[in-house]
């Protein structure tokens, strides 16, 4: 109640600052000049405790004991990501099948979230993840449709992928631009939950609340115009959409927000 009142009567910028002071441990902070420095100041991505928590939640979803999980948090009904489902179905309609490479797709969060809408489609869904996720995925989650692989190359040598999906992952890569340049050969690129900042790109540290799992890691906030330009030489931007995550404000008052994009490869004149 006090929090609600405070929020209602306080200008958002000030509230955001107050909120940060109260919950200094959680959220996004810093402006790091190098990945190494940011990594040194965080617990990192490969903390086995994260996988343990994610696995427990994902198993409940797989076994039908829970409806949906994201970042290991369980929900009592599926939180559909409608733009992602619409773009996936668009590809499925155009190609008569859907073969997704879900880069950083955890233990199948988006697959389990979307599969009700993809039942009518010949579907293969490959998650490429960190080795300990893939080990666990192969052992406990893989089935006829959902597979796990250690690298993009491993998948594309045996399957014709018609959609690269990257949800909430790009900002966690050490060299995101270099990585983007390496994936421009895909016809359809669907990006969701990517973090942006008004102003210049910056490297921060994200601290995940303890009730989710105790962890912190480096996180890029991109400049949106610059980000889009990395794709538009080879791809057409079909649509842009807001991601579910709420926007917030950095300690120096820059707006931080999350968005999604659907890029389709340009057909170059012969």
């Amino acid at each position, binding site marked *: 109640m006090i929090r609600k009142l405070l929020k209602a009567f306080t200008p*958002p910028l000030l509230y955001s600052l107050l909120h940060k002071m109260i919950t200094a441990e959680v959220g996004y902070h810093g402006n790091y000049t190098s990945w190494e420095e940011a990594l040194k100041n965080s617990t990192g991505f490969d903390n086995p405790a994260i996988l343990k928590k994610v696995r427990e939640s994902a198993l409940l979803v797989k076994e039908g004991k829970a409806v949906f999980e994201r970042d290991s948090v369980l929900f009592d009904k599926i939180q559909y990501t409608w733009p992602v489902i619409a773009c996936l179905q*668009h590809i499925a*309609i155009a190609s008569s099948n859907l073969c997704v490479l879900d880069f950083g797709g955890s233990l199948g969060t988006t697959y389990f979230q979307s599969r009700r809408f993809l039942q009518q489609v010949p579907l293969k869904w490959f998650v490429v993840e960190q080795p300990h996720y893939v080990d666990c995925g192969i052992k406990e989650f893989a089935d006829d449709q959902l597979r796990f692989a250690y690298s993009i190359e491993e998948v594309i040598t045996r399957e014709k992928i018609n959609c690269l999906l990257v949800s909430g992952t790009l900002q966690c890569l050490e060299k995101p631009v270099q990585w983007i340049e390496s994936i421009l050969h895909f016809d359809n690129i669907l990006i969701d939950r990517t973090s942006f900042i008004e102003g210049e790109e910056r490297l921060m540290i994200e601290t995940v609340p303890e009730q989710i799992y105790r962890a912190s890691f480096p996180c890029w906030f991109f400049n949106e115009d610059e980000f889009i330009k990395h794709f538009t030489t080879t791809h057409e931007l079909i649509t842009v959409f807001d991601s579910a995550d709420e926007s917030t404000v950095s300690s120096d008052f820059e707006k931080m927000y999350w968005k999604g994009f659907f890029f389709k490869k340009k057909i170059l004149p012969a």
Partner: protein
Amino acid sequence: MPPLISDYVRKLRVNTNEYKGDYKNWGDVMGISTSFQENAIFEKVKWAATQVKEGKAAYERDSVLFNKIIYTWPVLACLQNAALTNQQLHVIDFGGSLGTSYFQNRLFLQKIPSLKWFIVEQKHYVDCGKKEFEDGQLQFEYSIDNVLEKEKVNCLLVSGSIQYFENPFEWFDKFIAYNFNHIIFDRISFIDGTTRLTQQVVPEHIYPASFPCWFFNEEEFINAFTKTHMLVADFNSADESVLSSDNKKLYWKGFYFRKNDGV
């Protein structure tokens, strides 16, 4: 600016619709309203739809123009799902104006093997639609029966229209009797409490008008369809929720029902 104040300013600026009263019968509200027949409304809608058709604007809704398409992602996803299930999308857009949803979604629907979009509307909309807006995919008809006489339809879309009918529950029964495989609702008005009939007053900057508007009880609404159809998904519509004068929450939602036999 504190949110309470900015909310208030935004409401002043947007000047949203008002929903007044709790009426016992349709005639009482009609007696004090301008109704939908108003020619000025139609002319404004027609002008806006023409701008979209001619590519001078990207999108219109309720005659308000936008310079980029505002996708209604859940509706698009549900339409695509109907198309994937039946390998075609033959949709009746009940109360679909001069093609708002068609023009909004057509970029994403072009690859569907067979796309036909039938708008069932009031007579003067259909007259105008037939003359000025029809193309190979978009057609206009005076009734659902007229469409079904010539075409097999697998999807019914009802976006923001059924609450403006005198007997919506009779229409729900009709929708079920037509046996559509897929029924998609969007922008349907609900109230926390029992179903209520109000008078909607539209802000002048959109078009000066007032007319009766139902607010349904959500559970009662869903129950009208779940004997024959399964509820695949529900979603919040873009319209923001407001409070009635007696502090009941008024809100707008969408639903996707699919026929129980799974086709």
